[in-house]
């Protein structure tokens, strides 16, 4: 069977965001798969998001081109790695986000090319300095399980108020920088920002930390009702939910976004989300035809997948940096941090974990991002293989010439690659006299007790989302709430401020690249690699592809012709 290999980049500001488990966003393992093409014929147009494109040099068979027609009907069965613990669109792990997007909508959305398109808002406009955005809402969108009640500005306002209230324990990172949201009339809302944001309409199209719109009546009554009931306006409606085995959705026949044939999405009648946690099991299920597509698989079973299905690959924006907490000895010494970067053999790690992946900087911005600093060589300063002599020299200057015994290094079991990285990292550091034990934690324990805590060093994980600057915003600037390394650098903060307030793409790009250079050379993140992600689908599935973002899904735009 054929295989396709994509190297897509994510365009414009694209504040990538950390997906960090439970209350912080999703946390994940590989990339995501979904369906592309289709699109809609809404005429609403956004502004302020110019240049948002996906650059793809796919050497594939062209199925990523938007087709003229697609078959309708049938059941689409996806082999999923995870089930969900909640049907609330506002919290949870990876699968929660993917399914949340199937059931709920935001004001805007991005298409498969990551261009902003209308969704619940049919059009919008911004003031001259991009600090006030006015959205005109559709009038024909009904909530599921609400007796035909249509969505109005009051529901948008109520959703905003809920997500920004103290009662909400999750992350609403896509609303970061929003000062207020007010109702102008029943079909118009106005959003005021703290500072200019060229890409605001793209930010609120994010799936993670998303600004989904839910009924005001449900929020007024009891927000917990969202936990097990679908009150969305999305293309799919929840039918059955078996936490251990499968979830079934039916098509929303009145969905407001249309496919290539002018009829409402989705193309299929039913989606089955079959939970198969084991990689080999998913590959075997695809092989025997009990599932139609597998949204995540590993390179280890790629051969098995390609035996009976089309294997798809995509260069991802996932990253697994090693976080060095700058507030604890000896990691508070920049020489020790640099010694670790010099001692790291990133090529070895890449070969062991994802031979088809790519290396990037120690900067937190991934190569799939448009603002990725191409002027900065991947091996700038520290190289891509171990420089043992230089590392030992720096350690000696730092007073650790006789060796250095470190506290236990942690990683979690939520991302299998982390276990390999941890073992190789331990071996590589041993070469320069840095010794430590490694300890595997459950994902839940890591998130609750170790992540972003005082005095720890560990492997974290981030994914590129539609927007790109959220990692610097949340995790790298001094005041970032997710500044795991507790790193503070005035020059970086100044560059970040310039990037944030830029009103031209050129200015923003320059500042973003400067931020990357500073973090690469001085920062407390030790970059490792960016994996290739893998998926597969049977030949009767159409419009299936992988995307470099992690939690963006286009499943409703897939079609099956069994």
């Amino acid at each position, binding site marked *: 069977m054929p295989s396709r290999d994509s190297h897509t980049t994510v365009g414009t500001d694209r504040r990538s965001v950390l997906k960090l488990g439970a209350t912080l966003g999703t946390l994940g393992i590989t990339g995501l798969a979904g369906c592309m093409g289709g699109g809609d014929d809404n005429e609403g147009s956004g502004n302020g998001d110019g240049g948002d494109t996906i650059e793809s040099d796919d050497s594939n068979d062209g199925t990523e081109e938007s087709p003229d027609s697609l078959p309708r009907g049938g059941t689409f069965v996806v082999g999923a790695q995870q089930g969900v613990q909640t049907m609330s669109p506002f919290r949870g792990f990876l699968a929660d986000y993917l399914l949340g997007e199937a059931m709920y909508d935001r004001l805007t959305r991005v298409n498969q090319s990551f261009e902003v398109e209308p969704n619940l808002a049919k059009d919008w406009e911004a003031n001259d300095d991009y600090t006030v955005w006015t959205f005109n809402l559709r009038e024909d969108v009904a909530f599921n399980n609400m007796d035909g009640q249509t969505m109005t500005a009051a529901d948008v306002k109520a959703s905003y108020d809920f997500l920004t209230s103290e009662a909400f324990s999750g992350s609403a990172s896509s609303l970061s920088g929003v000062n207020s949201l007010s109702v102008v009339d029943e079909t118009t809302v106005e959003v005021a920002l703290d500072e200019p944001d060229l890409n605001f309409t793209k930010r609120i199209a994010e799936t993670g930390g998303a600004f989904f719109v839910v009924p005001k009546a449900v929020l007024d009554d009891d927000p917990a009702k969202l936990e097990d009931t679908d009150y969305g306006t999305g293309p799919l409606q929840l039918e059955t939910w078996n936490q251990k085995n499968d979830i079934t959705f039916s098509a929303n026949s009145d969905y407001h976004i249309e496919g290539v044939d002018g009829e409402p999405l989705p193309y299929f009648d039913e989606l089955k989300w079959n939970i198969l946690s084991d990689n*080999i099991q998913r590959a075997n299920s695809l092989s025997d035809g009990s599932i139609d597509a597998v949204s995540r698989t590993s390179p280890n079973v790629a051969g098995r997948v390609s035996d009976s299905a089309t294997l798809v690959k995509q260069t991802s924006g996932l990253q697994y940096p090693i976080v060095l907490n700058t507030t604890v000895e000896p990691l508070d010494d920049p020489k020790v941090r640099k010694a670790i970067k010099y001692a790291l053999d990133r090529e*070895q790690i890449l070969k062991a974990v994802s031979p088809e992946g790519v290396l990037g900087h120690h900067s937190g911005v991934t190569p799939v991002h448009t603002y990725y600093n191409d002027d900065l060589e991947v091996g700038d300063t520290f190289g891509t293989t171990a420089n043992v002599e230089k590392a030992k020299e720096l350690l000696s200057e730092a007073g650790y010439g006789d060796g250095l015994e470190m506290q236990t290094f942690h990683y979690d079991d939520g991302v299998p690659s982390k276990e390999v990285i941890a073992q190789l990292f*331990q071996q590589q550091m041993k070469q320069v006299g840095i010794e430590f034990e490694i300890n595997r934690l459950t994902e839940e324990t890591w998130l609750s007790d170790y992540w972003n805590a005082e005095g720890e060093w560990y492997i974290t994980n981030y994914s590129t989302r539609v927007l790109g600057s959220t990692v610097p915003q949340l995790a790298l600037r001094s005041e970032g709430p997710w500044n795991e390394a507790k790193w503070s650098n005035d020059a970086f903060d100044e560059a970040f401020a310039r990037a944030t307030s830029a009103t031209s793409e050129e200015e923003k790009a320059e500042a973003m690249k400067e931020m990357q250079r500073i973090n690469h050379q001085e920062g407390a993140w030790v970059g490792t690699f960016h994996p290739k992600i893998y998926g597969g689908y049977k030949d009767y599935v159409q419009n299936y592809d992988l995307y470099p973002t992690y939690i963006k899904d286009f499943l409703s735009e897939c079609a099956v012709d069994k």
Partner: protein
Amino acid sequence: MATDTSTSTESTGFDLPPIVGKVLSNRRIGLGLAILLPIALVAILGETVAPYDPTATHVADRYAGPGGQFLLGTDHLGRDLLSRVILGGRTSLLLGFGATALALLVGVPIGLTAGYAKGRVDELLMRIMDIIMSVPTLLLGLLILVVLPSNILNVVMAIGVVYAPRIARVTRSATLSVSEEEYVMAAKARGESSPYILFREILPNVTGPIVVEGSVRVGYAIMIGTSLSFLGLGAGPPNPDWGFMISTARDHIYQTPWFLIWPSVALLLTVMATNLIGDGLRDVLDPREVGDHS
């Protein structure tokens, strides 16, 4: 139950020289030892006989097949499988024998006390043991390791706790049958303390069934320890451990089957050997002659 005193004493006792002779001449025990002793010897010598550091990675040589530089091949990180199987044996044997020793240490005194004291003490202790035994073995081990950090000592402790009730029950059963013997009565009449009677008068006469039960438990302990490691609750990487090796190898089965085969074969041989020895000891010591096993 009524038993002839002299017969009972002889059958449940541990008359060393004849027993040793029977043990050594038992074919099952001989075969078991022939398999287990080399494995144990190699595991004990560990780093001395392992050709490589079992945690040293050689990424350029990952997934190497048997032969050549790496006799049994390499794993997904290019680590020598022979060295990891050898050192993994140390972990498994430590689990098997360590956990059984702990189970004996806990279970035997409880069983002796319950069988000797009888009455409410017996009821209380045995009902507690029943409660522990009512939880499936693997589940109980998992529960313990969810609470405690998963390292080798805690795994030993978890399995020891899981198997202690079984040892206690066998010990109690044997104790019940000898606690009414004349030599025990005589000790009581002499005014000996209860600990003295338990450990100097009764214990030497119930050793047979305890040894048999303990030997059987070694194999089970290795299996449950391996299962816990398979589920990620063992010693943890990069330490070599058969269960975790098998678990990791599953993901790489399409790259190299040897990664899965070698630790599985080592586990199979070890458990088979301990079971053969256990069966042999049961034949030799024949615990059925001890009497009441209710």
